[in-house]
């Protein structure tokens, strides 16, 4: 570095008394605006602490999450259906609004195993999934049992749990679509293929 010429006039900046390792320190004020940001932060901390921890004026994050979850659950309950009501499923299976939507989901997600015809192993023995159009069921053939199978899956055999992916409504639509290939009151058998 080139040596800089000394200022012609020194207004008298003072040094502090202490010396550490021969290093001294100027005694200069911090900018006032800088100090105000510090005071502001301290004031903010007091208000924040009072509002959240003492007075409870502001909702805590925990209570806000609880409120939001309650709202979500209320909305879910308002639009949820009784999945233990077999008659309801049979009604849905006769309604094209539900079965068309169910067919769409079935086509995009279920056909790799159960085939577009829904006939699975009956159509092609090499298919992964069982026939869903016959009256022989492996995990129960009543609508609510069917819903449980689709909803929770049969993880040991590779049937995924679909309700966490699709939600209750879409899962019920798929069940309605499957039921549209069946008759209410038909004789069903539950058998486990060897």
């Amino acid at each position, binding site marked *: 570095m080139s040596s800089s010429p000394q200022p012609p006039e020194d207004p008298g900046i003072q040094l502090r008394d202490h010396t550490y390792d021969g290093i001294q320190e100027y005694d200069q004020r911090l900018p006032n605006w800088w100090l105000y940001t510090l005071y502001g932060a301290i004031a903010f901390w007091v208000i924040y602490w009072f509002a959240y921890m003492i007075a409870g004026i502001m909702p805590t994050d925990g209570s806000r999450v609880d409120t939001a979850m309650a709202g979500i659950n209320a909305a879910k309950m308002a639009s949820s259906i009784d999945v233990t009501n077999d008659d309801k499923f049979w009604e849905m299976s006769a309604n094209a609004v539900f079965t068309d939507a169910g067919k769409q989901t079935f086509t995009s997600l279920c*056909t790799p195993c159960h085939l577009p015809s829904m006939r699975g192993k009956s159509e092609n023995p*090499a*298919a992964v999934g069982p026939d869903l159009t016959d009256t022989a069921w492996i995990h129960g053939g009543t609508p609510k049992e069917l819903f449980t199978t689709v909803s929770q899956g049969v993880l040991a055999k590779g049937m*995924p749990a679909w309700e966490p992916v699709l939600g209750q409504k879409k899962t019920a639509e798929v069940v309605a679509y499957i039921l549209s290939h069946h008759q209410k009151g038909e004789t069903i058998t539950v058998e486990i293929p060897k």
Partner: protein
Amino acid sequence: MSADHKPASPRRSVPRPVVDSVTTIASDGSRRDLHPADVHGRFTRARRWSGWALIAFYLVLPWIPVNGHPAVFLDLAERRFHFFGYTLAAQDAWLLFFGVTGLGFALFFLTALFGRLWCGWACPQTVYLEHVYRVIERWIDGDATERRALAAAPLTAAKAAKRVAKHGLYIVASLLITHLFLSYFVSLPEVWHMMHYAPGEHWAAFVFVFAAAGVLYFNFAWFREQLCIVICPYGRLQSALTDDHSLSIGYDAQRGEPRGKLGTPDAGACVDCNRCVQVCPTGIDIRHGLQLECIGCAACIDACDEVMTRVKRPVGLIRYDSFAGLGGGVTRWIRPRTILYGVLLCVGIAVAAFAFTTVKPANFLVFRTGGASYFVGPEDVRNQFMVRLVNKRTEPATFVVTSEGLPAGLRQSGFEAPVTLAPMAESVSPLVLVASRRDYRGPFKFTVRVRDAAQTFTLAREVEFMGPDARLLEDEEHEEREKKAKEHHDPKG
């Protein structure tokens, strides 16, 4: 303590800078306003043109459509980022790495060579302050002397009118800048649309624009050089990036000292007119050498050159030069530091160019379905995957998904037909692979490939088909067969 406590005299109202303290902070911690004098010259002219060009660039970009979108449009709602017709999706956010490191390396390289060229010529703080806000101030309040007199004058109707006019224009300028800024994120028509509604209708955007305008107003009306001196890290970083051969604005002490008024015998070139101090926007005396406060605006160069021309001495007493050059030596441009920063910058540019030109207009992921990793049935071994496809284009696209490198006899179900996705839509569908026990030879790796129907690009991921060791299955079958054979021979057992 210091002379600041003496009653203000015209002499003291122009503070004499010292190296050891910040001119704009008085010894009691209060702020001292600067009133930099007008300056004329080649650098001032060049800076004015480049500043206006930069401002025009900023103001105009959202108005120019390229491929149906504004030239630069960071569409947060759709998470699509348009740059001059080149569109990136949220999935391409990793490219931001190159933006950030590129900016870093470019700054390293430029700083090592040219010092704080950025601060004086291109930083938005300087550009808007010098070419918008100070222009307004100069227009309303007059030159430095008038401004200083006005600041010291008691509040009269005339002064109040000037203050209202000046701050009103500051606020208008701040609001214009922030509205334009918002349009980079929501597009101009949308900003215009939102401006027709009550603030409550678009609360977030309203608060953003007015809070940002408030910050800008505070910054440019009052805070000004404090940002460069106290807040901006770049000024402090530069000491690590520059050396004796980096360009900076410096005073040629060898030529200038000892300074003295015209006619002083044995005096150097500096006539001690103090013009370089009067024009400085951060309130330093460049003759003290390079200081943290210097933003490299070159105002002192123009001021000094003007004086030198008037007194018929060579210009360049204050000039762009390195410490080496100012000390009478030669500036070395090529040195280990510039080579290193240059190489880093070039490597970064090369990798970024590669990354940006190979960005695919789709994204895909293959993951295993929940439950077991593989399924062993009486006839076969099975793996189930989910394939997530994302169309990053703003038009529909059709994708063909295939599995490659599968051993003989392996069956795939799912993705028999091409998948068509709406603009920016995504889908998740199963892909099931079945190996019959007869053909199964143990786990293997294969490739899932996605092509668009027009074959313009292909994406691939290597996936593992998992399963037991083939010998285990054989042993199991062998046992099974023996058991059956035994049963056959000995039905009672």
